[in-house]
């Protein structure tokens, strides 16, 4: 059984709408499962609680629909595997500069070296400086100044040098 055959079988599953297909030939075996996709008409969405989520909850996934888990930002972020994502190690408020009306620690295009401060996250009245761990070029700043960030939220994407 070659890749072409398998591709075709996958097509069969997708189009036919069967949930599972298992083919064994001698010592080769293929098993194809279709994940249950949810097609919800608009009224259904309406009938669902639509919480006015803040940015901090961009990652909150409506159950029973894990498919909707990934938020736009992370999606973009992970879309380019060559980039490194700097995530927030704590919950708090994100500041791009040391004080109001002072320039941001970094801007897109900057080259940063390990240990260089990228931003400040205020947590329980403490200002926590977040430093770069590797050298690289800032490709994206993913959080707006003064916005809250949750644990693991993507803040910067940078291309390592």
């Amino acid at each position: 059984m070659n890749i072409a055959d398998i591709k075709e079988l996958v097509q069969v599953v997708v189009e036919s709408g069967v949930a599972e297909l298992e083919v064994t030939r001698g010592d080769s075996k293929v098993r194809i499962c279709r994940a249950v996709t949810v097609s919800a008409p608009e009224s259904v969405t309406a009938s669902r609680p639509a919480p006015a989520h803040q940015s901090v909850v961009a990652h909150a996934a409506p159950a029973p629909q894990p498919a909707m888990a990934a938020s736009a930002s992370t999606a973009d972020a992970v879309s380019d595997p060559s980039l490194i994502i700097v995530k927030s190690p704590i919950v708090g408020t994100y500041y791009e500069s040391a004080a109001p009306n002072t320039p941001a620690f970094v801007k897109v295009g900057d080259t940063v070296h390990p240990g260089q401060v990228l931003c400040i996250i205020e947590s329980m009245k403490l200002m926590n400086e977040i430093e770069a761990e590797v050298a690289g070029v800032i490709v994206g700043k993913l959080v707006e100044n003064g916005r809250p960030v949750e644990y693991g939220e993507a803040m910067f994407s940078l291309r390592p040098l």
Partner: protein
Amino acid sequence: MFRKILIANRGEIALRVICACKELGIRTVAVYSEADRHSLHVRFADEAVCIGPAKSVRSYLDIPSVISAAEITNVDAIHPGYGFLSENADFAEVCETSGIKFIGPRPDVTRLMGFKQHARAAMEKAGIPILPGSRSILQSPEEALEIAGTIGYPVLLKAAAGGGGRGMRIVNEPSELPGLFAQAQQEAAAAFSCPDVYLEKFILAPRHIEFQVLADEHGSVEVFFERECSVQRRHQKLIEEAPSPALTPEMRDSICRKLQEAMAEVGYTNAGTVEFLMDEKGKLYFIEVNARIQVEHPVTEYITGVDLVKGQIIIAAGGRLSDIVREPLQIRGHSIECRINAEHPEKFTPSPGRITGLNLPGGIGVRVETAAYTDGVIPPFYDSLMAKLITYGRDRSEAITRMNRALEMFVVEGIYTNIPLHQKILAHPDFIAGKLDTHFLVRMQEQAARSSG
């Protein structure tokens, strides 16, 4: 007590009866059409028999198939649920002749109640107020005109054997009467193969209030207070609650006492509901008796603490009401039921199909009656009721806030439901204030149309 019961129904009510049987230690037999092969009542019954194709006339309504299923599974009794064969006196008779106990009133009583004129006479005898109207079937448009003249317009023409709004006509002035009379007769003949019509006073903005009754086969009757079912769409109830916000304790007591006499008088047995209309002045008028358990029975169970379906079975097995109602009945708290239908919330078009995602609300004061499950299917062949959502609170306002919470956490994906409609109704100031009548929903929708247009 019975050893084994066949449930001649489907969906949530079949499951409801199965639950009662399990709690009484009675084995259960489900019957199902080919469309219901994978439904939960088949899943949770001890046995199940396929009785025909999807179309209910050839399955759930087909007496020989149901009786045969009962015979091959050797049951002692049949519970008909509501709808389908539940108020079919012939079916009850076939059960009797086949030596199977029918869980419901005796056929003759069901027939008596089925003919509204007889029911009205019986109630009137016991001093229950009835709508002024023709005391008997109308022989001619002339007779109708004469009676209508004495009662005063508007009047309502109704099919004697009818129900569900078919064969009904509102007459606003004498000139309209002859034409509408003919229409009503034709519709009645078509729907119930009986053209008889009668007329009664038409109340412009009535509340629908009904009383729940249980009567055993030893002559005792209990009335489980009332339910208010005024939130309706085209004579289909949408939201029911108990107690009614419109009834005073005095009115409640007096009606309950009179009904107790009346139902004992007619030799009524098992569960029944006595329906009334309340006019703008708060006066109650009897309209009809439904000789079956009703969709909205859970709100009564919540405020009285009595399991009515268990009660039906115990009574049919010869048990006594005193075993079902141990201490004097009293109302505790308030309960509301929302009928969750598989239909578009604005267009009301039915929405059968596969449920791809489902989250049923739970927690304190919430009861769900449903046969739906994730990946389950709502078939297009039967009514669109996919779940009953019932909440309980220490008072009406807690029951309402709890219902809001439960509706918000009731997630159905893959089909449309009327959950958004229920949310609109529960947010409406008139509903919150208990200012209800059977035109409430139409008014609400007209308001919405105006404000949006």
